[in-house]
């Protein structure tokens, strides 16, 4: 699904964002990527999305080799992924329905498919009744749910969430996490970058901790802080 082989990323300004990262996420997993800001976890996600190319090593996502793939193929890589951001990134002048349908429109889906899939995605995130609302009329949690619906409407095999609860209060954060878990249970691999301790601790999922560009911990059913002495380091 996602594989990093000895990946180093150095930005043109000299910043070393990732150092010899090795990791592998298999189909159907739910993985937290944790680390303070500046740890390199955003760079890790950028490499998966091919916003950036690795300086050394190899990143393979859904069968695409990030460093050697052609620019023309990027859209097709991204169609196999769903992405959710901290700031939702909804289109303010489009309704909830249109925002979700837009994701299918840009990949030139059949109108019939759009009419079938969009209500299903909205139902999954529990926003069927707000289909005609504009994002500005929704709460933060609801907006993030729209973003989730948009991310999964094309049935991606991998969902990437970059600080999905960063702008939300604890209770709403939980709603989003429960939805991510549900999406995961339906078979989608989920990758969540976060630094929210309580959530990571409560959900007991695989945790990949990154510090100063290096994977310092990769633990099944992990906590935010490494308190488990029997932690299993997988590299």
């Amino acid at each position, binding site marked *: 699904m996602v594989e990093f082989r000895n990946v180093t990323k150095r930005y043109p300004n000299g910043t070393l964002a990732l150092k010899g990262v090795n990791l592998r996420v298999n189909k159907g997993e739910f993985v937290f990527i944790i680390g303070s800001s500046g740890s390199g976890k955003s760079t890790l996600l950028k490499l998966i999305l091919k916003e950036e190319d690795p300086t050394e090593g190899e990143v393979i996502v859904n069968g695409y080799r990030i460093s050697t793939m052609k620019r023309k193929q990027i859209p097709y890589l991204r169609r196999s992924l769903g992405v959710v951001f901290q700031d939702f*990134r909804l289109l303010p002048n489009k309704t909830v329905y249109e925002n979700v349908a837009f994701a299918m429109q*840009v990949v*030139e889906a059949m109108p019939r498919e759009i009419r079938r899939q969009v209500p299903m995605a909205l139902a999954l995130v529990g926003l069927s009744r707000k289909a005609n609302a504009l994002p500005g009329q929704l709460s933060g949690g609801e907006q993030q749910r729209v973003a989730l619906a948009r991310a999964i409407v094309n049935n991606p095999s991998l969902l990437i969430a970059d600080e999905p609860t960063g702008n939300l209060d604890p209770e709403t954060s939980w709603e989003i996490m429960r939805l991510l878990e549900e999406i995961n249970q339906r078979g989608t691999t989920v990758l969540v970058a976060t630094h929210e301790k309580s959530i990571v601790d409560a959900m007991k999922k695989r945790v990949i901790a990154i510090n100063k560009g290096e994977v310092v911990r990769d633990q099944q059913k992990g906590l935010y802080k490494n308190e488990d002495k029997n932690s299993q380091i997988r590299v």
Partner: protein
Amino acid sequence: MKIRTARYVFKEGFLNAYRNRLMSLASIAIVIASLIIFGIFLLVTANLNYNLENLKEEQPEMQVFCYPEMDDAQIDNVEKAIEKDSRIKEYRKVGKTEAFSKVKNEIFKGKEYLLEDLDESIMPVSFIIKLEDPEDSEAVVKKFKAMSEVKNVTIASEAIEFITKITYWVPLVSGVLLIILLVISMFIIANSIKLTVFARRREINIMKYIGATDWFIRWPFIVEGVIIGLLGAAIAFVLTWLGYDAIEQKSSVALVKVGLNIIKLMKFDEIAAVTSLIFGITGTAVGAVGSFFSIRKYLKV
């Protein structure tokens, strides 16, 4: 492209142009101004060529004069040389008798007594020559002047030189001008579309993440640019048409008054098709290229 995508692209393109209408109008105005200036040069060039063709038909004559004392064999030499020269379209031999009577009747009319003691033997045999292309005149003059039998070659070369020069420079100047104007128009259109692109950068960014291809994102903006370019071209065409028609109608009277009735302006109908085609292509190209460049930066995600 799928039909539903084309529909999306055109709808978005028109919407963009409308939402950004102030800049769209400014861009259209620039395209109009550029194309009208270009149109003036285009029409001047067309008319110069048209009149040059006419003048070539009535081309000023070149005349090769042999020495009067040359015998028939020597004159035959010159005639053969003229005959063999492929640059010469036609020629006519002017014999001594004809030359003498012409001088008597035209130059010494009423004073024929001055020529009493003379006869046609003093007159040279000459050849009146028409060239295929006036540009060759210099070379032809040189060639015949070099022949020992030839005394002199006269030519109305200045007029030909002048027209030839103009027909060389006008397209050149208008070409350079066209490029400058096109670059300016392209720059203005690019800036106008940059505003739209900037206003929609979030949307573009989201589209990139969702997996839209570059062309899917680019097309609506290109449509917007082409709309601006084509509207500008259409208006410029109508204005050029009206302006030219007015000038053309007045010119025929004015030119006769100043005695320049050899010069004729073409009817607009004769050049309308070419002009509209050039305007249309230019407008489309300027709009498309302008928007292509304005969106490039935002596609790099």
